[in-house]
């Protein structure tokens, strides 16, 4: 847009410069054409003053001369009149031409003005569009800000909820800890019962030294204490002794288990460490 704008501006400037040039030329030629008529009337007045102190002959002569002069003056005046008329006509023509040119210039100026106005209008329209765009952007930003605010508020609410939940859980944990003591007592009781049950089934071979390493059995129990699976997760180094430990676990099945579901949950996966301390 700016290139188009500056293009027309340049054209208009060029045109004005050309107009100014035309004016200057026509004014100087008008001044030059008027000057000769002024100097002629000043010379005529001077000649009248000089003729006061002269004789008849001289007068006659003077009259003749004056007549000649008068004729000449008349001729001159006629010529001057003709010249003046010509000059006047010329001047009129020039004025006419200037007027025409001026009119043309005015037309062009009007056109240029119109164009400039159009350009201005364009500019204003563009400005208006820009303003509209700006307004839209501003509106969007405002919407975004509002959304962010809403989100922040939501987050805060969530944080609050989480806090409340955490507090609730903490309370539950506290309660659980309290229950835990009771449960632990139950677990300990059944751990002792399980130990008893398995030891009764654990065959230790006569004279075979128990290894220093323990046989470690990971045992999974059903809710009724039935041994679902037993896995050797640590070997004594003697497969035969490991097998006796495994047999002891399965022979002791079902193992005594607590009825309390929480205590039971703690005892469903158990590790038995078979190790002869002696």
């Amino acid at each position, binding site marked *: 847009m700016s290139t188009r704008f500056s293009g027309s501006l340049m054209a208009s400037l060029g045109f004005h410069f050309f107009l100014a040039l035309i004016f200057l030329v026509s004014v100087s030629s008008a001044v030059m054409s008027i000057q000769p008529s002024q100097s002629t009337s000043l010379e005529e007045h001077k000649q009248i003053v000089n003729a006061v102190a002269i004789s008849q002959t001289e007068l006659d002569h003077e009259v003749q001369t004056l007549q000649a002069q008068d004729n000449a003056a008349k001729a001159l005046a006629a010529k001057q009149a003709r010249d003046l008329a010509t000059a006047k006509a010329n001047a009129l023509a020039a004025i006419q031409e200037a007027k025409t040119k001026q009119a043309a210039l005015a037309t062009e100026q009007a056109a240029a003005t119109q164009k400039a106005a159009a350009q201005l209008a364009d500019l204003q329209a563009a400005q208006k569009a820009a303003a509209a765009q700006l307004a839209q952007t501003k509106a969007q930003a405002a919407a975004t800000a509002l959304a962010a605010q809403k989100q922040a508020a939501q987050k805060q609410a969530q944080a609050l909820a989480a806090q409340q939940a955490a507090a609730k859980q903490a309370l539950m944990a506290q309660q659980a800890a309290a229950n835990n003591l009771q449960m632990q007592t139950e677990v300990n009781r059944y751990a002792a019962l399980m130990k008893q049950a398995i030891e009764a089934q654990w065959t230790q071979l*006569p004279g075979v030294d128990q290894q220093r390493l323990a046989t470690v059995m990971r045992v999974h129990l059903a809710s009724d204490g039935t041994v679902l699976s037993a896995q050797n997760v640590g070997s004594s180094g003697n497969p035969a002794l490991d097998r006796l430990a495994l047999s002891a676990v399965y022979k002791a099945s079902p193992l005594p288990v607590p009825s309390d579901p929480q205590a039971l949950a703690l005892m469903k996966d158990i590790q038995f*460490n078979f190790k002869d301390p002696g």
Partner: protein
Amino acid sequence: MKRLRIGLLSILMLAAFFQTAFAVLEIEITSGVVRAIPIAVVPFNPADPSNPNDIGRVISNDLGHSGQFQIMAQNRFPQWPHQVDAVSGDLWKSLSLDNLVMGNVTALGNNQIKVDVSLLDLFHSSGSTPAILSQQSYTIPVSQSRALAHHISDLLYEKLTGEKGVFSTHLAYVKVDPIPNSLHKRYYLMISDVDGHNAKPILTSTQPIMSPTWSPDGHSVAYVSFETKLPQIFTSNVATGQRRLISSFAGINGAPAFSPDGRILAVALSMGKTNPNIYLINMGSGSLTQLTHDWSINTEPAWSPDGQSLYFTSDRGGAPQIYRINLSTKQAQRVTYVGSYNASASVLPAGDKLSVLHRDNRGFNVAIYDLQSGTLQVLTRDSFAESPSPAPNGRMIVYSTQAGARRILGMVSSNGQVNIRLPEASGDVQEPAWSPYAG
């Protein structure tokens, strides 16, 4: 900031709670029941109760005699399976049986038989299908039935106890038969299977044979023979019967004992005096080294497993007790202080215990002396026990004992829980020596 702290606190509390909740409970199992493994040996198909070489029966006897197995009586069997897929695991599990052995014998003609044997584990899982611990198939001449049965027993024993079995080892002993219508006797140096079967003499004499002992490689036996009416020490190759005279010094030549490397024979020699002392005879060079130098009776040398010292019986303290002499310092010190009579020591394989003949007010019995604690455990109640000799795994001790008017062989587990007697058709059986593992 305060809110954050509360949050953190509750998280920590939760973490603590879950840690207690999800840590796997551990229970220490510390004291089992010392007992033999309950096992059933189903008679092999076809079962032949009249055949003493019936493989299933030999295996059953072997395992039963070891002291590590409690053999289920056949009248308790819930079924008689011969194939693994015929086994009803639950039936046997309800009897608290750990393991089941079964097998088949197929005649192939040409005196060849095929023997299939399976060892099952019943309490290996929650299911009722038993696990196969071992499954073997052999083709042998029928005459090798007993040897194969002992081999299978070794395999089963090792599988179930983690220790090497001794069922393929042998015994050397002296058998004394009265000669009919005579006051004289006939003496036999006998070699038999460890269950007393397949006994055959490698030496016969009208004069006493005493103190047989095995070389560490199990190829030969050293013994005292009175065949010249005077005691001499010989070795005999068990397979070929080839003999070699080792010691024929004046007076007593007795109680030979091979060093663990087999190069030296420790003996008791009196060298023409009234009392024997301990000497070492180099089996290669024949050179002699005297270890004890006193006027008491010093006899029955027994090597420590590391070959660095000898245990022996001496009455230098007034009554027979066990002493130990360090072979580098030649210094002897008394070992046993329990009771008034401890003799005939052998060192158990771990080197931490001795088997001894112990006499108290109940008579002569086999005992285990713990070298670390200095305690003695009497294993037998025979009152007339003699010559204890431990198995190479130390789990059983063979000895001679009195049965009526005769002397027979007995075996006792080294914890005293199993005590059996090996029957002998005739005569007196004495001075048994348990062989090393078959080389």
